[in-house]
């Protein structure tokens, strides 16, 4: 493997400097592995199947570090499949199979010696539907630290996570009540707090606002923007306004006739929405299909 195009663009344009990454694979650049890598995930020729049905084809793409990257595309184009590959969540689906490589800070997530459980401790995930455990608010947030053998001040950690998720003021007097007793928007922020409590480095969010009303959505979006300073965030969204509001970069996936998701365009969100390079992107963002 000599050189990989970092960003697949049918138009063949030069990617913007800020996401232009070294063309050589990570392991050939040991000196830069920690210092200069400014991508959190690097996806190389990823294809994925459920049983015999292919869901993704030959995706090559980098997710920048400490930025919000949105994945957009019509329903069924493989957005969830892609984001779930990043923390090997698809391992839980028996029929699932993938080819290609995914590097997380330069390390192959499926390589020998890598462990899905350890990987997921570094990568938080927030799901489409709020899914708090039927446990108290405190126990929900403390779950991750507990299974990870956290030995410090659990109370302080829980409080910190709830504060970062902008939920602390609403729940500080009722930490013992069930997480299921909260409103949908609060539940989703609880799930974000729960993910933050394991002190991850990246946060994957699969349509985190699709079950919420506009005000709850607004609060979560605010939260995402504020979290992007410390975390690398990948967010799947159906909502293009949302992508343009919260993300720095946007990935557009599309599945054609055969219903196999492919990467159409990746770029800084502003560029992708104002001057899309691919006409299919333009059609999609102007609402002509999808």
């Amino acid at each position: 493997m000599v050189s990989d195009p970092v960003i697949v663009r049918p138009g063949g344009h030069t990617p913007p400097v800020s996401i232009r990454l070294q063309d050589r694979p990570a392991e050939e650049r040991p000196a830069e592995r920690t210092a200069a890598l400014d991508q959190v995930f690097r996806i190389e020729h990823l294809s994925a199947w459920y049983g015999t049905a292919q869901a993704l084809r030959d995706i090559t793409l980098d997710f920048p570090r400490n930025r919000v990257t949105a994945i957009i595309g019509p329903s069924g184009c493989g957005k969830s499949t892609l984001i779930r590959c990043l923390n090997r969540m698809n391992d839980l689906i028996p029929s699932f199979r993938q080819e290609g490589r995914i590097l997380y800070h330069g390390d192959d997530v499926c390589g020998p010696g890598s462990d899905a459980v350890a990987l997921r401790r570094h990568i938080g995930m927030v799901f489409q539907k709020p899914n708090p455990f039927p446990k108290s608010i405190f126990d929900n947030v403390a779950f991750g630290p507990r299974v990870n053998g956290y030995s410090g001040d659990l109370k302080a950690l829980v409080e910190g996570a709830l504060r970062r998720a902008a939920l602390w003021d609403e729940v500080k007097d009722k930490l013992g009540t069930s997480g299921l007793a909260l409103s949908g928007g609060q539940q989703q922020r609880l799930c974000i707090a729960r993910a933050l409590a394991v002190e991850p480095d990246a946060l994957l969010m699969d349509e985190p606002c699709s079950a919420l009303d506009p005000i709850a959505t607004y609060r979560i979006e605010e939260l995402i923007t504020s979290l992007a300073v410390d975390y690398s965030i990948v967010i799947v969204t159906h909502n293009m306004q949302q992508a343009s509001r919260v993300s720095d970069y946007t990935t557009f996936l599309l599945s054609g006739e055969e219903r196999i998701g492919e990467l159409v365009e990746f770029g800084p969100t502003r560029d992708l929405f104002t001057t899309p390079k691919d006409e299919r992107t333009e059609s999609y963002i102007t609402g002509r299909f999808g």
Partner: protein
Amino acid sequence: MTASTGNPARTRTGRPSGGPALARRRRATERAIAGLLLAATGVSVLTTVGIVLVLVFETFEFFREVSLWEFFTGTVWAPLFSPRHFGVLPLVGGTLLVAAIAIIVAMPLGLIIAIYLAEYAGQRTRSTVKPFLEILAGIPTVVFGFFALTFVTPNLIQPLIPGTNVFNALSAGIVVGLMVLPMVATISEDAMAAVPRALREAAHGLGATKLEVALRVVVPAALSGIIASFILAMSRAVGETMAVAIAGGSTPVLTIDPTQSIQTMTGYIAQVSLGDTPQNSLEFKTIFAVGMTLFVMTLVLNIVSQMFVRRYRNVYQ
């Protein structure tokens, strides 16, 4: 739809076309069928009511001669010999001893099987193992009794605990535990299968291992169903007759020593009903008093387990 377009049974207005006579006949048939169904339902209701009434009546007769106090606090059960004693505690004790041993066997085993089936086994393993559980549940209880008497006691218990009686509560409890095992396993597995996949994914996403997901998320979320399975198993163990009558013996003593022969409430009822105790005698009426006690115990257990089942249904629907 009209009659001319190929549906002769109906006219344009949708009314049956056979005229009022046919309509009347149909209504009569409908009513007859409804009546039949009602009668069938009635049989089960009436049977229940009848049994309960007989129990209540005969129990009442019994307690005209024996005081409630003696019955529920006496520690000697000897209604058939003089001096007669009517303390039911030895029978209750024997029953609870066997049921407790059964639960100690069935609870951990059943839960492990349920966790394995719900969280670890693949589709193929699951469809292989489940029929075995069903077969186990379908084995006649008398077979379990002889299994306890002729295999468990001489080959497993007596070598380990010398001096164990041929009839003993331990062997009865163990086989009753095996009998209720499928119940614990399948009800618990159902409860765990009802836990939404989203919760498992959330836990995996936080870096929990498979075992942690099972023990810290799935089991607690399914807890009321699991507890319901334990209580139902307990209720079944308390009501079990054949195996305990064969393997447990017929010595009503108040003991917690499982190597001793005991007698359970059901065992006693079976013994008296099959024996030559004259009906209408006080001795015979004891079986109704004992039966009533048993009935109330299992009824309470079933109601409690229903409460748990309802609770876990409410959580996810």
